[in-house]
């Protein structure tokens, strides 16, 4: 008898911390994979939360066509840690160790699109560290950016900015 009561208490307390499973938010990645997350996670993603708010919480399936199923779990993992107050230097170091340059850029764009300030600030720092003291060509390749200056414009800028070109780290790629 006593056991029954305690198990009832348990289920009660669970339903309290975990409001109701129907409130789970489904995030649909660009390649149509559904990720179910708690509403608290959605709150971290301002873009998602404002969409939920706009529809008075009636819509709980949110398509995120810009974000792939490869990137979304990273975003969710970061948000979960953030809610739990477990964003530590160690966690961030481990988190970023798993990511190559392309993934960092993808996640950065995702964080910007979803408007997750903490993740955006963190990835800004990661990118800044990775491009610090590098060459202009390195940064173009890093971001996959086309040079949209004419050769004349670029030559003029290079002349004006000659003082910034001393002691640039080598690109570790064979290039002139």
């Amino acid at each position: 008898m006593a056991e029954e009561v305690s198990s009832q208490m348990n289920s009660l307390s669970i339903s309290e911390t975990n409001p109701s499973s129907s409130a789970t938010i489904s995030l649909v990645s660009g390649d149509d994979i559904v990720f179910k997350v708690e509403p608290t996670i959605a709150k971290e993603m301002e873009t998602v939360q404002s969409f939920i708010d706009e529809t008075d919480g009636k819509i709980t399936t949110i398509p995120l066509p810009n974000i792939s199923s490869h990137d979304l779990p990273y975003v969710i993992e970061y948000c979960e840690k953030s809610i739990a107050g477990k964003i530590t230097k160690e966690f961030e170091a481990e988190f970023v160790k798993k990511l190559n340059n392309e993934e960092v850029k993808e996640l950065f764009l995702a964080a910007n699109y979803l408007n997750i300030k903490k993740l955006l600030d963190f990835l800004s720092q990661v990118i800044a560290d990775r491009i610090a003291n590098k060459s202009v060509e390195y940064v173009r390749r890093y971001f996959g950016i086309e040079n949209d200056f004419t050769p004349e414009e670029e030559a003029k800028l290079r002349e004006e900015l000659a003082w910034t070109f001393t002691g640039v780290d080598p690109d570790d790629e064979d290039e002139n």
Partner: protein
Amino acid sequence: MATEMKTESEEEKNKIDVLPEECIANILLLTDPVDSCKFSIVSKDFCSASESDIVWEHFLPSDLISIISESQSGSSLLATSPSKKSLYLTLSDNPIIIDNGKKSFQLEKQSGKKIYMLSARDLSITWGDTPTYWNWIILPESRFQEVARLRYVWWFEIYGKIYGKINEIKDTKNNFNVLLSGVCIKDMF
């Protein structure tokens, strides 16, 4: 509802690969003044991000106004600079005379660190007011009005003093350099 989101997001999709200028600026301000200038060559978006005030606000000393606004050239520079970047570059290329002509202030271009220079009039020079030993001359190449010229001396003693906030001195990022200037001994003999 999902289809509605899709049409809206198709436009987004074209945009998402492009880094918004504000994001670029937020990355640049985490590098340093040299990189922020250099990377303006990356592309036109980078170029306009590297002009943005949020980047250069970050590199300028937070107490800049209190340092230079009392000097005439400092306050006119603050009033006329078209952007924070231009303010930064001007302050690193052209020292501002502050403290009634007694000191100069500039920024180290590479790092944004403060550089103060003390003029000879701001130093304690033993026998400095005795013309037999020292006289005060005008040197066109000096930024200060007067320069102390050593004529003859038996012993030599100069003190310079500058005050800084204790947290500023401890903070290596915000460190400042002090230079003594305006003491001319090269043509003593």
